[in-house]
């Protein structure tokens, strides 16, 4: 029992990182039907941006809480803007051309970001200060739960709840949902489509950046390739939850984290990806739209 709880706690922690990144995939897909393969790399850029802020903050002897808050905010803003720039430069000119063209562009952006980060920060590992967060924790049903794990999970839930409320209850959020149904109709209703798409990228990028900073702080190691594996897993989470569906991405992310943790614990860490993808395939066989996905009229 205590071991099971331990796996669950570990899985939920890593799952919350996945979920934050998965949200960006799902939002962008929902609105412009693009699988933004560069999204995982936004997560990586966020981790590096936060790392730079923490290093600068430590140099100026700011209090730790201030450093962390600044790192999170600066990374979210910087990466949000970067995501908007990415949309403007790389995707918007191609929105009307074939899906394949824009997909390949996304791969190109991904490689550009990865190699750009390698040139800027080197090919090796950089590390967040290892002792910036407390290592202590408490016991829950015999499992060791770190305060940091709780804080990370809480922050992720808070951000996700914020996003959900934004999408459900603000005019911009309503416009986003309208766009996901029918872009042309939305435009006829007077919605500024380009603006809303940009805001979607801003939000998706910021959430990925938050996840990057949190993961950097939690695991300390960051690397220019860290976005690749994250991107793949978060994308899987988005598909599992039903791509285009926001609560689906959250649940999908947490589910993948827990699945990974349980399969690594009870079977072997070599099998964790096999099991995760087997579950994904099974879900898609029986429910092709994912757990929460709804059947929408196929366009194109």
């Amino acid at each position, binding site marked *: 029992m205590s071991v099971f709880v331990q796996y669950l706690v570990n899985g939920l922690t*890593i799952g919350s990182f996945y979920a934050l990144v998965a949200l960006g995939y799902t939002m962008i897909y929902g609105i412009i039907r693009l699988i933004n393969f560069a999204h995982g790399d936004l997560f990586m850029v966020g981790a590096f941006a936060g790392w730079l802020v923490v290093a600068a903050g430590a140099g100026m002897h700011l209090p730790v809480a201030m450093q962390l808050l600044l790192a999170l905010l600066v990374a979210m803003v910087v990466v949000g803007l970067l995501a908007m720039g990415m949309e403007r430069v790389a995707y918007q000119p191609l929105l009307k051309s074939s899906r394949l063209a824009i997909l390949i562009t996304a791969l190109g952006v991904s490689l550009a970001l990865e190699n750009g980060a390698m040139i800027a920060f080197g*090919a090796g590992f950089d*590390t967040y200060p290892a002792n910036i967060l407390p290592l202590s924790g408490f016991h829950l049903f015999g499992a*060791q739960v770190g305060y940091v794990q709780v804080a990370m999970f809480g922050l992720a839930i808070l951000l996700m709840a914020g996003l959900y409320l934004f999408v459900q209850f603000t005019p911009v959020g309503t416009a986003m949902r309208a766009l996901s149904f029918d872009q042309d109709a939305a435009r006829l209703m007077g919605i500024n489509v380009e603006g809303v798409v940009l805001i979607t990228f801003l939000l998706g990028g910021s959430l990925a950046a938050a996840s990057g900073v949190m993961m950097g702080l939690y695991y300390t*190691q960051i690397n220019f390739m860290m976005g690749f*594996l994250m991107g*793949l897993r978060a994308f899987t989470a988005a598909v599992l939850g039903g791509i285009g569906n926001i609560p689906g991405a959250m649940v999908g992310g947490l589910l993948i984290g827990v699945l990974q943790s*349980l399969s690594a614990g009870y079977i072997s860490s070599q099998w964790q990806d096999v099991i995760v993808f087997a579950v994904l395939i099974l879900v*898609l066989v029986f429910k092709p739209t994912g757990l929460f996905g709804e059947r929408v009229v196929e366009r194109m």
Partner: protein
Amino acid sequence: MARRYSWILAAAGAMSLLVAGCGSATTSSSSSSSAPIKIGVPVPLSGSYASAGEDIVDGAKLAAAKINGSGGVLGRKIQIVPVDDACDAQTATQAAQNLVSQNVTAVAGGYCSSASLPELQVFHSQGDLPFVLDASTNPQLTELGYNDVFRTIGRDDEQGPFAANFIANFLHAKKVVVMDDNSTYAVGLQQDTVKALKTYGITATVQHLTPGQSDYTSVLTQINQLHPDVLYYTGYFTEMGLLLKQAHQLGYKFQMVGGDATNDPTVLSTAGSAANGFMLTTAPLAQFLGTAKSYVTEYTQKYGHAPGPYSVYEYDAVSVLAQAIKNADSTKASKINAAIGKIHDFKGLTGTFSFNKIGDRTPAVYITLRVVNGNFTAYKELNDAGQWVSVK
């Protein structure tokens, strides 16, 4: 509907393929008698182990500078040609072919055994190019019977028994878990250690992890259920740092000991205070070698950081090659190979050594290190009587 999803998955597959390596090809134009003698250095310069690779290249460059400063070899300068093998078998094959196409005279380098293996096969098939390994410790590399493979470092089947002796006779462990990361190197060391532990009456439990993840808490939880005294991890430093930190967070108390691939400052920066008390078995660092004091000073001055664990072995590998080319009075591969085999009591920075019939360094040396106050410090070594004593 179904079509859309199959398309999504196909795209994901394409994405993973695209990431597999890309080598850089440089054009070559050499072979006049005054042109420099090129020595290839295949090491990981991208990916998780890039920092170790860069240190090795720097060590090679220092050796070349030293040799060139005293007139070079056969009146020609030594030129170091680094190439990225990404610690990946496929990329390594391309990297080795790249070196061959650049007409290198010999090769000194290697880091991951899983990359060195395909490399030495390329060099062997391309006219027995001499390959002196500086860090790849898998026994198989010299056991293939090739006459062009040598190494300046000990091999895993020597480290395994050393580690087992340390765990059994010094740490007095009863329950031991030995974990690898499925790489050629780590599995080899794991098997040798487990075999050697048996001779001390210890039946170790074997575990594997998948490298490149960030979260190993589940693996650690699984291990902790066995209540081991010691966890010996034979994989690389990236994962070691994470294992130490996460075990500390989970409150697990078993002693962690690492193999020589965990000998890297990244472990300390990743794990912070959780690294204190961590021990590892390794070929001695330059810092702990009396013969390499001036090398450490020179390296640190030039590159602004301490030499990594293997750069000094690379320095010796390049020096051995230069000596052999001089002795052979030729840059012909077969003559260099013969000359390396004949080198006796070479006075390198890592001590005085020769090569045995299959190209392995004799004698090999190992020590243990321990992290104290966030620094690797020399800990115990075996004296001639087979007792554990503090390293002087």
